[in-house]
């Protein structure tokens, strides 16, 4: 059994009367990539910044690598790496100089040029930070978060605001961290990001954890299953389909069939036979897989009706 490197118990954070984080508990094992998934204002940053010793907690306990963050702040700081939300470094220093600045803050640190190389920043090594694009700034931020060769890396919304290519680059960097055996704590409001990167996801909403598990787990449990969609059928075929497939839904000229575990295959083959028998009078037919998006929508109740359940 691998040991827990992060243990959070009954954590509460209040800003005045407002409770931003409401009694949450979780633990993370060494080498995991763990994602906090939640909308704006869910309490992700607040939780992360408490773990980074940046904010004080109102109640509960946080234990990082065996140290209580309240008592051993300095020891914790030596062993973690942080990419804050909306990261910025010194504008008038170059990429290399910025990484070097932060490296020098630690008694033991990695070679700066090897970090430049690891994040593929060689061609921007001597460019001023203020002249970098958003994606490059985030990569510099990740490089800086690694200067002390940390055991745990916290990345707060590493890809927010980036274009698809820049997001991919950031994702590649995170995957490299996993390969190196580091524990990564990630926050995001992108479902695909959580799905692609994280081994385990915690869905946070209004300061509460409302679901936790592997992405597949969550999709199976809360995704509302897969959905067969048959589009643009003529009137006769549509009536035939409605008659022979129970529990199907009609939306305009489309028919939606929830594929339940067990008899999903039967529904599909029934549908295809009917379409075949009626002279292929439908436009298209496909199966839509549930995503974390659906999980989220179902759990937070925003669009509960559409998702089924």
């Amino acid at each position, binding site marked *: 059994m691998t040991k827990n490197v992060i243990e959070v118990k009954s954590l509460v954070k209040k800003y005045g009367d407002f409770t931003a984080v409401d009694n949450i508990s979780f633990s993370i094992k060494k080498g995991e990539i763990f994602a906090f998934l939640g909308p704006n204002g869910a309490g992700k940053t607040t939780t992360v910044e408490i773990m980074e*010793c*940046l904010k004080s907690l109102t109640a509960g306990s946080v234990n990082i690598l065996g140290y209580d963050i309240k008592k051993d702040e300095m020891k914790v700081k030596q062993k*973690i790496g942080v990419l804050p939300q909306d990261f910025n470094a010194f504008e008038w220093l170059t990429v290399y100089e910025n990484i070097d600045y*932060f490296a*020098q803050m630690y008694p033991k640190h990695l070679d700066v040029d090897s970090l430049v190389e690891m994040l593929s920043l060689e061609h921007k090594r001597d460019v001023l930070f203020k002249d970098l694009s958003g994606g490059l700034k985030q990569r510099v931020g990740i490089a800086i978060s690694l200067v002390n060769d940390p055991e745990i890396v916290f990345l707060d919304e590493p890809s927010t605001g980036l274009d698809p290519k820049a997001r991919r680059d950031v994702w590649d960097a995170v995957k490299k961290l996993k390969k190196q055996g580091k524990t990564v704590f990630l926050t995001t409001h992108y479902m695909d990001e959580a799905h692609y990167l994280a081994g385990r996801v915690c869905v946070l909403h209004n300061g509460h954890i409302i679901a936790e598990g592997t992405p597949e787990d969550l999709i199976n449990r809360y995704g509302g299953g897969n959905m067969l969609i048959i589009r643009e059928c003529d009137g006769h075929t549509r009536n035939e389909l409605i008659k022979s497939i129970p529990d199907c839904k009609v939306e305009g000229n489309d028919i939606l069939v929830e594929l339940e575990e067990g008899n999903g295959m039967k529904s599909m083959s029934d549908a295809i036979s009917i379409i075949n028998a009626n002279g292929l009078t439908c436009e298209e037919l496909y199966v839509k897989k549930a995503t974390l998006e659906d999980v989220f929508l179902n759990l937070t109740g925003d669009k509960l009706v559409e998702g089924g359940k």
Partner: protein
Amino acid sequence: MSRISTDIKYSFKETFRDRMNIFWMFVFPIVLFLLFGYIFGGQSGSITLYYQDNDVSQMSNSFIQALNSTGALELKDGSGMNLEQMLKDGKVSAYIEIPKGFGQDIITTGSGGSPSADLPVYYDKSKPTSMAAVSVVQQVANGFNMKMAGAKNIINVNPTEAASSGMNYFDFLLPGILAITIMSAATNMAVGTIARLRSTGVFRKLSTTPLSSKEWIAARITTWTVLVILSLAVAVFMAWLVFNIHPNINLISLLLIVLGTALFAGFGIVVANFVKNEESAMNAVGVITFPLMFVSGTLIPVENMPWFLQYLAKISPLTYLSEGLRSSMITGNTGDAFINLAIVAVLGIILFGLGVATFSWKED
């Protein structure tokens, strides 16, 4: 230690890469110096004449009235003041000393007796207005002579070029500009750096590293002090090159510069600690320091300002910094310099201490 030296090294690099900093630090003080020098240089407002009436007779009184009624002078009662020293310090450009027995002498001379009444006028040749003051005194005395004795010389005006301050307006102005430079550079660097690094989130990042906020302040105050000294050095060098001014660089003036920097940096830190919004913090500092530039005896002597501004000058820390620099660098009045140094030191320790004590980059 290496954390502090790293921050110092890189904060210098950052400063010198931004051209705007170069302008504010090295060009702006010189522009100010030339601008104010030429605007106020020739005619520093009204002509002020101090007097000391040691006679207190009807005659001396009417002589003073006569001076006053010319309207050409602003008369100031200098009784009890050490006018000789003030002239040497460049605070007074001319004064008369009505000797005891002045009135009696006029009466005896007028009635045929021999000794005429002497009236010494002391003036500072380096001040353009002083000669005007002397000539007004001369004319009023002539008027007396005319009226009372038919052009017979009963009042003998005795102009004496006093042990001068040797200070023309540019000499006077230089320490004032240096003080203004210390104030604006130190406050703006402190409030600007803190507000910017906070709003861009660099502080949030720094606070997750082993660097402490006290270490960061220690590093930055070192950088700021060195930058201020460099900036003053360039200004002094220019003044020497163009106006042939040779200020004394001594321990007191150096201490004034260092403690003055701490004072105003401390003030900037305090403002940045309490006003969290970057723009509001910069504005707050501007609103306070801008008027101080003008009321602190930097551009015109405090003695020449209206009385209500003189009160403001008394509570402005910049006054003591500027007077201290003027005494130590230009007039060489060590006693005066030392008193001002003491005031700047106390204020500096209080404000800088307050700044450090309230500075934190942690959020709650």
